[in-house]
């Protein structure tokens, strides 16, 4: 209590310095006047009275000093003194300060940026959504099959009804519609959501309302939509009376019932949703397939919010128990099915899962860069401390405490780090949208992956700042504080006694830098090799001379028969063009960012194990699809126009399916049951990749477009370029319907490349930072070697006087540098061998111990080291032996 009062009193004193001084003067003056008056009364002469009064009181200056001391907070004042002194020192050597601050800004900025990405993409990915710490993602699983599956609506409702540990179950499904009909059609992303969506997320629409519970039910019964702030702003020009107006969506007028607040993007990492419709509209927005009453048809990518205090384990246990009950109650649809909860950062169905490995690598990389930057600044400070040893010795000699010196040096460190932290946060702020640039637009829409700089990121960055200060500041500070007076005084006369240890320390720092950079180099070359391996992987279809695009007929309000006629007509018109080899319809082209339909299947002669429920992905493809994409048929035939609604249903299966369900025997002519309907196998297609280059070979089959759901994509085999083809396409489409426009038209190569974006981001990241680390290490090595050369002038001079040639000197210096480099590389190789596992699934067909990658890193590192040593070595050969010996 008393301590606190004294502290506050003194703290207040700091801010009232002027008035305190005046009060003190006045009080002392009053005292003197009284004493003089008293002395005069006693009969002294005015002069004697004055002298006596002063004598009684004592030295005014001392009293004031004692008074001030009592009044002051010594800690703060000393700190202030240190700060001022620190700033003066930094201003005195602007080059050093700038370099140090730049190094640290880079280190801290990179860390803050990655923190903000992790926060904004993985930890709290949904701006404006309440209690994200209790949110988990929910997806279905199939026993014995890797990956995740969507949840069906009946299952979702049962889980919601029977669970006890959850505040909310949220159904969500990303979908797209085409809105800007002009010269080019633009995909607009939206979500089908359960009616509780906005309430459960704690997001209040700024105009109108969210959805009402009744809007979950009734087949296509509630054509209402909540639009995003951005759509309200861009498309409706902030119309304040927007609520109640209608907007055509997928051929049906929808009443706009609400506008979401600014900054709410929905709940799909990577995309900004533009509108939301309630679950009752599912059929209209997912391929005209009604799924709300089909327990076997999954479409929901769900989220749950746990009740406060419920743990993830208990929640999972309850969900698993409920899923087990569903499996028993509905064996025909739910056999082998489970439900799994994931923390948001491992969400399997959005970009969080894709970016997780990349971001964890990024985190490791920036920590490395920070360490290297710290080592560099440490080194710079050591050089500077050497220049300041005279000053330090003087201060010790004049009675400065060791603690005080240490504090002074650390204060300078704090100043450097604070300036760097400010710069670093600015860097992070600028870079918060960088991830978006690294990941390409898909389907013509740019991604939405903003970093989030909130108080947690700020706190962590400040923490990093202080940690770095300790890291880079403490080493030189401790060394300086252990100044041996007599030794330092002697060192003034040119000895090198004190220099030995310092040189050792600096060499250690450089070795550390080199080893850290080497680790990054190994990581970068491993990823480059892996990317090369990925790109040289054959997708199983032809990526040259093939283009893909889409025309959204559902959004334009076409019904099924009209759409089918339009598509056939368009294919015929395009095929008649010179230069166009063939054109094929497909619902979902390979490597598109959409999921294929999957179906329960049964095969004559294949007996599934009791808890196995054979489920296979499939796609609807048009006539000549395999020829157009260049996928060879192993046996049987392609689909033709004759495979239409009235013809007997057929399928083309892939080789993996033949191997699994027909034991490798040619199944052409055999039967395959899909969703209760029997199809006849018409052909066998060679294996190809379906979603990305990394996937393992999997069973897959194709059905004719006219016997399945409507699709809108085209594959065009042509020798024409995309630009020319687009012009033809626009012309042909608009001859058929003036109001229609095609979507983005890209080469299949581009389509494939877009799926390797995570790997490319990782490569870009490691290469950038590997390069920077290399530069920092080179600067460090250069500094150490320059210093060593300047310190051994006498020795060099002597060697030259004794007949050493320039080449000998060059070799001597460079070999010293190489010793450090080799030490660093050996150390770094050890660390790299241990850490390469971190690259995990990003490494494709490349061993984490790949000798080629290590070799490449070795060559780059050695060359850089040679370059860094060359200048000091060359300077060494220019030593004037006479001058050096005379000094």
């Amino acid at each position, binding site marked *: 209590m008393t301590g606190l009062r004294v502290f506050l009193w003194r703290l207040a004193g700091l801010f009232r310095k002027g008035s305190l001084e005046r009060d003190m003067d*006045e*009080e002392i003056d009053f*005292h003197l006047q009284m*004493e003089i*008056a008293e002395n005069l009364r006693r009969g002294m002469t005015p002069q004697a009275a004055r002298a006596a009064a002063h004598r*009684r009181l004592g*030295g005014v200056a001392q009293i004031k000093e*004692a008074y001030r001391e*009592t009044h002051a907070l010594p800690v703060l004042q000393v700190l202030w003194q240190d700060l001022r002194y620190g700033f003066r020192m930094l201003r005195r050597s602007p080059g050093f300060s700038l370099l140090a601050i730049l190094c640290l800004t880079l280190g801290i900025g990179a860390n803050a940026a990655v923190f903000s990405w992790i926060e904004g993409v993985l930890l709290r990915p949904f701006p404006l959504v309440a209690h994200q710490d209790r949110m988990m993602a929910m997806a279905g699983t199939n026993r014995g099959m890797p990956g995740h599956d969507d949840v069906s609506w009946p299952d979702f409702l049962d889980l919601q009804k029977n669970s006890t540990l959850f505040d909310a179950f949220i159904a969500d499904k990303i979908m797209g519609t085409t809105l800007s009909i002009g010269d080019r059609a633009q995909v607009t992303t939206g979500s089908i959501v359960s009616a509780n969506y906005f309430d459960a997320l704690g997001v209040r629409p700024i105009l109108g309302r969210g959805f009402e519970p009744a809007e979950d039910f009734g087949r296509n019964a509630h054509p209402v939509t909540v639009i995003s702030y951005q759509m309200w702003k861009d498309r409706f020009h902030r119309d304040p009376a927007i609520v109640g107006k209608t907007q055509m969506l997928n051929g049906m007028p929808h009443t706009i019932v609400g506008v979401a607040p600014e900054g709410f993007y929905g709940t799909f990492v990577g995309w900004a949703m533009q509108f939301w419709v309630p679950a009752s509209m599912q059929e209209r927005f997912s391929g005209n397939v009604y799924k709300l009453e089909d327990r076997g048809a999954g479409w929901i990518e769900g989220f749950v919010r746990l009740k406060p205090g419920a743990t993830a384990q208990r929640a999972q246990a309850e969900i698993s128990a409920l899923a087990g009950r569903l499996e028993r109650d509905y064996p025909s649809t739910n056999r082998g099915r489970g439900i799994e909860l994931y923390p948001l950062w491992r969400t399997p169905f959005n970009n969080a899962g894709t970016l997780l490995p990349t971001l964890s690598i990024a985190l490791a990389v920036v920590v490395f860069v920070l360490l290297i930057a710290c080592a560099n600044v440490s080194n710079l400070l050591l050089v500077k401390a050497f220049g300041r040893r005279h000053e330090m010795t003087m201060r010790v000699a004049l009675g400065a405490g060791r603690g005080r010196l240490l504090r002074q040096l650390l204060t300078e460190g704090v100043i450097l780090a604070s300036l760097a932290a400010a710069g670093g946060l600015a860097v992070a702020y600028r870079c918060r949208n960088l991830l978006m640039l690294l990941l390409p637009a898909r389907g013509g829409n740019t991604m939405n992956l903003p970093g989030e700089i909130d108080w947690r990121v700020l706190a962590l960055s400040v923490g990093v700042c202080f940690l770095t200060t300790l890291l880079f500041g403490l080493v030189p500070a401790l060394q300086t504080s252990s100044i041996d007076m007599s030794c330092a005084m002697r060192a003034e006369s040119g000895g090198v006694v004190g220099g030995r240890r310092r040189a050792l320390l600096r060499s250690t720092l450089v070795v550390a830098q080199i080893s850290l950079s080497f680790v990054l180099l190994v990581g970068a070359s491993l990823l480059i090799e892996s990317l090369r391996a990925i790109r040289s992987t054959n997708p199983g279809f032809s990526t040259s001379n093939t283009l893909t695009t889409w025309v959204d007929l559902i959004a334009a309000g076409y019904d099924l028969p009209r759409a089918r006629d339009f598509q056939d007509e368009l294919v015929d018109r395009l095929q008649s063009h010179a230069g166009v080899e063939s054109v094929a319809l497909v619902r979902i082209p390979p490597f598109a960012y959409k999921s294929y339909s999957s179906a329960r299947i049964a095969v004559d002669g294949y007996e599934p194990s009791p808890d196995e429920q054979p489920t296979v992905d499939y796609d609807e493809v048009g006539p000549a699809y395999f020829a157009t994409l260049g996928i060879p048929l192993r046996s049987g035939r392609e689909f033709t126009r004759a495979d239409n609604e009235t013809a007997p249903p057929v399928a083309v299966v892939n080789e993996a399916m033949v191997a699994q369900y027909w034991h490798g025997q040619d199944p052409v002519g055999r039967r395959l049951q899909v969703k209760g309907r029997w199809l006849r196998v018409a052909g066998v297609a060679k294996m190809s990749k379906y979603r990305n280059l990394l996937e393992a070979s999997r069973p897959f089959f194709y059905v004719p477009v006219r016997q399945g759901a409507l699709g809108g994509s085209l594959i065009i085999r042509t020798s024409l370029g995309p630009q020319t083809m687009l012009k033809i396409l626009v012309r042909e489409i608009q001859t058929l319907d003036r109001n229609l426009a095609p979507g983005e038209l890209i080469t299949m190569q581009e389509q494939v490349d877009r799926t390797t974006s995570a790997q490319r981001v990782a490569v870009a990241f490691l290469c950038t930072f590997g390069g920077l680390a290399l530069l920092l290490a080179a600067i460090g090595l250069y500094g150490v070697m320059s210093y060593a050369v300047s310190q051994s002038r006498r020795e060099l001079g002597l060697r030259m006087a004794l007949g050493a040639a320039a080449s000998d000197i060059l070799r001597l210096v460079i070999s010293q540098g190489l010793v450090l480099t080799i030490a660093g590389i050996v150390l770094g190789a050890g660390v790299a061998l241990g850490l390469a596992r971190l690259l995990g699934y990003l490494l494709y067909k490349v061993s984490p111990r790949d000798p080629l990658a290590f070799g490449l890193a070795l060559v780059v590192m050695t060359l850089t080291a040679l370059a860094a040593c060359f200048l000091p070595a060359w300077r060494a050969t220019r030593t004037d032996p006479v001058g050096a010996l005379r000094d």
Partner: protein
Amino acid sequence: VVSVANEKAGVLHGSLALMVLRTLDTLGPLHGWGIARRIEQISGDALALNQGTLYPALLRLQQMGWITAKWGASEHNRRARFYAITRAGKKQLAKEAAAWDRISSILARFAKPAGESS
């Protein structure tokens, strides 16, 4: 017993604090010079107080919350700072006085030559 001397070791003499508090307790609000004069008078001028040390001591007593200071007019109508004892100060004074009594009685026993011989 928390003594002033312990509280601010070595700088503020417990005795001086005791004297100031006692003076203010007896005479009521008083300015610095008045306090100094009073202490000298009570000690019969035997205590050659270096008056200057009084002011930092007064400040410290304020910081402890034992006295307060207020600007007012002196007997000759000059502006002067008047110090007054607070309730906490009175409590402290009682504590200090008791402690002092005990210490001085112990010391007095040691000081008596009779104690030595017996």
